[in-house]
């Protein structure tokens, strides 16, 4: 059987040209090659093996792919990997230090802020962005900050409680 890309082989525009990407992920300098069209989430998951960043909807709705890009929460399925060249990226794998859970992670455990856990990395990173800007958010502010993160099993109430508890601990 013909290989599917053979029809495109003659067209230079469709050839995958690897480009160099260098970024700091969870405090460690990483260098890799990606295509121009590679999304940041795929660079993290497929090239760097950081599969804690999840692909849920693939359409910038669900927030499961949320990472911190230079400290700001972004949906890594809607950022080209090359746009993160030189940047600092924090994924959920960068949250626990020396085996000790981050206070937001601990609060999610203690307040039953997760059930299946699929949305949890994104929830935690969105919460980290919120708490960095507003260390004592109201419940309304927490709910607004989670607008871009969908949970399909736990429900939002325990998640809001977890973030409120984490805020109290940090304050």
């Amino acid at each position: 059987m013909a290989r599917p890309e053979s029809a495109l082989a003659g067209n230079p525009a469709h050839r995958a040209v690897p480009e160099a990407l260098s970024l700091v992920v969870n405090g460690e300098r990483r260098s890799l090659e990606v295509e121009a069209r590679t999304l940041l989430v795929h660079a993290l998951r497929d090239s760097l093996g950081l599969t804690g960043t999840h692909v849920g909807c693939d359409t910038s709705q669900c927030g499961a792919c949320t990472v911190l890009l230079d400290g700001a929460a972004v949906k890594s399925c809607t950022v080209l990997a090359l746009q993160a060249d030189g940047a600092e990226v924090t994924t959920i794998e960068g949250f626990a230090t020396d085996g000790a859970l981050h206070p937001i992670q601990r609060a999610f455990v203690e307040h039953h802020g997760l059930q299946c856990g699929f949305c949890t990395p994104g929830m935690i990173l969105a919460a980290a962005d919120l708490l960095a800007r507003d260390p004592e958010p109201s419940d309304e502010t927490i709910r607004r900050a989670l607008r871009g993160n969908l949970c399909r099993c736990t429900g939002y109430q325990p998640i809001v409680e977890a973030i409120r508890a984490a805020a109290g601990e940090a304050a």
Partner: protein
Amino acid sequence: MIPAAVRYVRPGSVEEALAALGEPDAKPLAGGQSLVSVMKLRVARPELVVDISRLELAGLETRDGELWIGALTTWADLAVAPELRRPALAALAECAAAIGDLQVRNRGTIGGSLAHADPASDMPAVLLALGASVVARSAGTERSIETRDLFLGPFTTALGDGELLTEVLVSVPAAGSGSAYASVEHPASGFALAGAAALVRPDGSSSVAVTGIGTMPFLLDGEPHAALAAAEIFGDRFAPAEYRRHLAGVVVERALAAAAARAKEDE
């Protein structure tokens, strides 16, 4: 969903970016919150993306009674910008704070959104009500486009090939003016089913613009409710045209009331 193969460049200056945008089928990429999404759907398949996101086109500045907003200013930055605390400009921050979600506001830019021209995007209504214009540059040329002339239809603007929207320019309304934005959102997408922005001036006169209800955002000329009754309104399975017309009347009233209250604050 992965975009079609594409070339990528990241110019170091606006001039270099304009030169790159002169290439056939080149698209400027800022925060990517519109462009990357449509590239993933392969609705857009540019040959070249010109990453302008690190150019010095972000930030706000008030000079000689005019507010300049760099095209790369994000919604997150607009939402907290001190320049927008005055009642006359409050609609800009109020609108920016309610766009999309936290992650989208961190990346999405005012220039990118205007150039994308989604007929349900919020900010165009505010800029229309404030009588704003934009600066469009291409290699060797620069022109100003009034926002009322910028939108030509769904996802269609007056920007030409190779033209880059670099700044938004708002004449600061007289002291004693107030502005506001109000909308009713689709609960899943967050886009406006109907949105309205109002500017109320010290003499009581007002400008009102709407979004989400037609093929593009538009100013309501004359008495707003009469203008809405005569307007061609878009309907879909989420909100039929007559429901949208009703909602538009509601958000117009809310925006006018909030703008008038802010105008009083400024007296």
